[in-house]
């Protein structure tokens, strides 16, 4: 499961990820990390059965934790099943079915957003839009 960690400025200096990994022993995968002057935001992928434990370890360290919502959505009325999205996605969210329609598994998405601009029909949008 993917969870979003928001670090307030005061804990940004601390090696929180490393601490949590050492404490829990859970192998965490970093999907995306954004750090600027005011905030640090990291999206991590955690095995489903250890999510609670990992989330709790981060919370204790002053980190805001939330489950990642469906990051991008498909507007089915606009999609023409071309598959332009297929080859630009780094984590294979999109695959061709046997009849050449497109299967989509947004749970793999790391929100690189390349598919959003690649789609000639504007059929893929971020959840906020």
């Amino acid at each position, binding site marked *: 499961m993917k969870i979003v960690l928001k670090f307030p400025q005061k804990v940004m200096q601390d090696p929180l990820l490393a601490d949590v990994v050492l404490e829990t022993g859970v192998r965490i995968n970093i999907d995306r990390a954004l750090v600027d002057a005011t905030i640090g935001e990291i999206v991590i992928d955690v095995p489903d059965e250890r999510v609670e434990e990992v989330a709790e370890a981060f919370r204790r360290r002053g980190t805001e934790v939330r489950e990642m919502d469906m990051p991008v959505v498909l507007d089915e009325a606009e999609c023409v099943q*071309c598959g332009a999205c297929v*080859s630009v996605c780094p984590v294979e969210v999109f695959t061709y079915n046997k009849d050449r329609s497109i299967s989509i598994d947004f749970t793999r998405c790391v929100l690189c957003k390349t598919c959003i601009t690649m789609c000639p029909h504007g059929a893929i949008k971020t959840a906020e839009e």
Partner: protein
Amino acid sequence: MPKSLEEINERIRDGSVHVVTADEMTHIVGELGLESAAQEVDVVTTGTFGAMCSSGVWMNFGHSDPPIKLSKVWLNDVEAYAGVAAVDAFIGATQLSETRGIEYGGAHVIEDLVAHREVHLKAVGYATDCYPRRSVETTINIGDLNEATMLNPRNAYQRYNVATNSADRVFYTYMGTLLPRFGNATYSGSGTLSPIYNDPDYETIGVGTKIFLCGAEGYVVGHGTQHDPVNNFGTLMVTGDLKAMSTDYLRAAILHKYGTSLYVGIGVPIPVLNAGIARKTAISDADIRTTVLDYGVGRRSRPELMTVSYEELKSGIIDLNGKEVRTSSMSSFFKAKEIATELAEWIRKGTFELALPTMRLPNQAVLKPMKQLSKAPLVREVMLPSITVHEEISIQEAAKIIVGKQVNHLPVVSADKKLIGIVTAYDISKAVALNKGDSLKGIMTKRVITAKPDEPIDLAARRLERHNISALPVIDQANTVVGIITSEDLSKLLACR
């Protein structure tokens, strides 16, 4: 036993016609053999659904009171060509909105019309005795137009090249986003369902052939522009009534950082008149080969990297000289199949009969490049000799050279004359102001953006613009500086063109 078209139309009328889609025909011929398949099957339907930029619509708006002769007209701020009779105009798919730019274009106006949405019309004219009015502004929908006739100068490309990108940066093209260092490859065309590939000798597709066009009945006007039958890049010019079309088979598209285009759905029925035609309609994805081109090179002749079949392309991965490259289709095979199936249904239901062409299409035309009176100048022809400096010299020495030679850029070279960095007058001022370092080594930019002597200057100019810099050292294959090209020199040169 050959059949006549009249016999096939008779079967369409009495409901006994046997219609299959072109991908099914491949299997049928495989199972039954040519002769039986030709006997058994009467019509093979083909289909394609993809970006076809050379598309547009002729419209007649009717006359206003007092009347106006349109000299310029805009629909939702997209200009349509009005250089014909008073209230006729042509809107092209790739014309961009003057207010929204790449986000909205002629293709969107066409889709809005088909979807029965209201469209804002603004026009100006010069007053004459018979057309005294100078401007008009109104709102129209497709029902308000006297005619809305789609006329697409180039559609249904027989096949298309595959696009990939060797360069170190992303390329945004009409073939979509091409990731750096062969990160992906994109292709277009419906392979086994390709209309022209199922009749490559133009025996049944010709002037007047009845087709499926965006959900309506349409016709082949003739061969399309850039028709190149010798190299299997044949094209069709097609027409149909926009008022009868459906957004199921017509969609506006935006190709990121490139422009707008129209996804057009075309289905062409091929009457199986004899075993020869049956053989050609049996073509499979494996039989159709196309070339992978490197779009990372901005020249007319893009380097050809390899050839692949549509079967390989559709597998999702091609092997590009040892590297596995993932593929995407820009056109929709799923929709192409839907179109071929829908057309087959029309024929079975007896609502669509076939027509033989009134004239054959050329199968020998030769495609010419643009006649250019002057060759685009090469970097080598306009570059200036560059003053280079050694990395160990002091900042003060560099400043002296900049002032003495009146230059702004100093390429920095190693002892064996290889380019290792660049410093600008600004870098020097900054170093002095901040009292930082004494040798160039510490302040030079190490990742230098360069040009090659045999590139056209347009490519160098685009690079300067993209990186927001003002000079490119020109280097040879051995990374030795052979000159420099600056934006100042380029603008002087371009101003004279």
